[in-house]
């Protein structure tokens, strides 16, 4: 009953719990890098620099337009870098997390595998 209880949890609620934890971790990373918001504001002026409306003649308006354009381009570049970094971080978490979830399934077999390996006498650097 004791072992049964442990194993039934391990391959039931325990495994589901690991999946939920992975989902939560990915959601948290997504929130931190906020890729959706970065995409939505991709061409917005960076930190609102030169973002305000300007009154004045044509030359003033033109200068403001170009200032705003530069601010938008800089904003887009920085956001692009962050989107790439964020995507990599999310991918990394996803891979590691998935690996952990898969490994979770084989942990109960580890003692048996260990016995087998010990009997076989195989050591990786002793080939």
């Amino acid at each position, binding site marked *: *009953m*004791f072992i049964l*209880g*442990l194993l039934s*949890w*391990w391959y039931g*609620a*325990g495994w589901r*719990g690991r999946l939920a934890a992975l989902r*939560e971790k990915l*959601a*948290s990373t997504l*929130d*931190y*890098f*906020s*890729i959706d*918001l*970065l995409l939505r*504001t991709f061409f*917005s002026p*960076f*930190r*609102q*620099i030169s*973002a*305000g409306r300007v009154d004045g003649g044509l030359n003033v308006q033109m200068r403001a337009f170009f200032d705003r354009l530069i601010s938008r381009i800089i*904003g887009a570049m*920085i*956001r692009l870098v*962050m989107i790439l970094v964020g995507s990599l971080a999310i991918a990394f978490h996803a891979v590691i997390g998935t690996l952990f979830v898969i490994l979770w399934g084989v*942990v*109960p077999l*580890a*003692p*048996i*595998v*260990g*016995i*087998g*390996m*010990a009997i*076989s*006498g*195989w*050591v*990786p*650097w*002793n080939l």
Partner: protein
Amino acid sequence: MESVTLNYGSMRAVKARMGRQLGGVWSWLLPIITLLLVAGGVMLLLVEQAVGWLVIGMAAIPFMFHQWHKHELKELPPIKSGSTIDDLLSIDILGRLSKNPAPNELAVVLGEVQSGQFFAARFGVGSQFLQDIAAKEADKTTLIWQEALKIKEELGLAEITGGVLVVALVRAFPGYENLLAHVHIGDDDLIQGIKWQEHIKFLIAQHGKPRRTGGIARDWSFGYIPLLTRFGQNLSDQISRGGLLSADLEAHTQALDQLIETFGKGGRQNAALVGAPGVGKTTIVHAFAERLLDASASIPESLKFRQVFILDSSSLLAAAPGRGELENLIMQVLGEAYSAKNIIICLDNAQLFFEEGVGSVDLTNVLLPILEAGSLRVILTMDEQRYLQIGQRNPSLVNALNRITVGPATKEETLAAMQDQLIVTEFRQKVTYTYQALQEAYRLSERYVHDLAMPGRAIKMMEAAANYSESGLVTMNSVQKAIEQTLDIKVGVASDEDEREKLLNMEELIHRRMINQSRAVAVVSDALRRARAGVRNQNRPIGTFLFLGPTGVGKTELAKALADVYFGGEDRMVRLDLNEYVRSEDVARLIADGADDPTSLTAQVMKQPFSVVLLDEIEKAHPNVLTTLLQLLDEGILRDIKNREVSFRDAIVIATSNAGAERIREYIERGYQLEQFEKQFIDELISSNQFRPEFLNRFDEIVVFRPLEKPELIQVIDLILAGINKTLALQKISVNVADDAKQLLVDKGYDPRLGARPMRRVVQRAVENTVAKQMLSGAVGPGSTIEITFDQVQQILGSQTEADAIAARTNQQVGESDEKTTGPA
């Protein structure tokens, strides 16, 4: 209804016991063993020992147990569709129970689990208390389970918690309500305790939940705010770093929703939170900031991740002391907030920005156009009175604001707010509050704290009590001590031995300085005893008495004696001569603000609520003054000129009057006893229009003082002589007056119209003059006793004319200000 059996062998019960075994030491030992096995295995492999695989493989066993304990056994949830007690019982209790537990075993278990300890610390209902009342027979446990299931269903709980079992155990005891009364709680309070515990669990779960705050992109979308960072407090930043613990209060939900609605739709983007100090306006702003940061909250997109800044008026003033500089700086700060696109400015205590004063400056000209334009989001908080004042000075400013009224919290809401605030206060002050302390803080703050509204006033009281904790526990007693020390009043039931003795022997103590008037002494003593035993009406003064009788019979003296004997000295008497309040306009003087007139009745009682209030010569007061006093006598409350409530509920109010003095003398001379004519006399007073019946009805007791008789006056002389001897004790000299001399002093000093009042002067003249002469002549020295004989008194007072002259002088003074001088003793 679920089955009331406990299946000891069920899977959940077994898991609960296993979880308990794997807790404690094993909870940290298992991961260490895992790590050691993995490290050991790797090291064996490094030295080319294949047995290392076995060691690594074995590490899986402690790892699995650790994971199982951490993720399931430690917090095994109840089985929703469960039918037996073991399906629904809280895991920490289930893991500790034997196969067939008796109620007293449940009591022992409750002492070991956190939920049971909660009731021990907060309510004084601990394990020992429960063991004492719980049955020892195992067959009685079924009743406990039945009651626990009933409570769980009633409260809609997911499981049977320790709190539920505490209540079930208590309820199983016959007459348990009497038992609970000893710890100042009732059955309802225990139910509140269960809810409180559940609420704490909820708060902890909420606090542990991951936050979604918009991340990096949020900050990059909005502008730089260096000035705002310098001159403002970023609430949103504090919340996202977990630095603020602002609980959601029901009382504030409505205001919060209005705030979101105001900023979520078009129109002027400003809101003025208006409410009395202490209602929680700033807390609402905190809750608002928290809501905006919650990505999962249902709020308009235009509000998501907006940052709330509270502008710091003092740092702005310090940075720009010059008039023009400050306006310039404010414009820059607000301009920055507008350009950043994500800022909501909060002007906390907004009056600081709209009026000239110390630490405040009138920036109406700068702020009004911004508020009217409504493009920059601004929240203002201010109290009702200031809002009206500002509106009076500048109506267009008030018209530009979207007003949101914040009302004071109800008792339930206040207690909930206190319980939430408690988490922070207990952590900071390193104390634990009992439930009774919270209730007492609410009760006493409602009565004595007038400068704040609920829940602020109760929270203030609660925090003040932390300094009076006993061994880190804040109890009812701590709260009472806090208010007694700060306001110099007595609020608890008399428990001190000295005080109880004093109360029980009050009549005797008063009679040490007063002769006769036993009924008057008895009624005031009874009132005081009722008050200190906690059986009086709390919503009225301790006692209200009208003393009627001729001058010089001891009316004022009784008030003084009371102030001295019980209230701690004659200076604890607030005395008002109502012959100075004969005009209608004098009402204003009676209730004047303490800052303008510290001698007004309201100002004196506000400063010293625990006192004797003596209203002398009440019949001479203007009817409007008497009408003003009606509320005081009725409810123990008088509003001062600033409409602040001043409590007279800890005072004894004594009104004196000479009205009908001649009639009393007539009755006495005709041989009537006081009891025989008292009622008729009061009726005569009413019918003669000297007092209105509704005014007389307001008094607890109307006591008629009778003139003193000659034998009593001998006793008065003894009291006067005792006073003289007390003075002479410094010189180690005492005075003894012969009995026949005393009789002579009475004959010379007594005046039927003035009572005993002239007698003090006559005695002083006769005795003090003799003593003075003898001391100067060197006839007496330290340690001597001066004997004063009949002849000496006669010689000093000379003829009857001498005494008459003294009496005449007294009479004249009394005419000028009746009863201003002291009474018979």
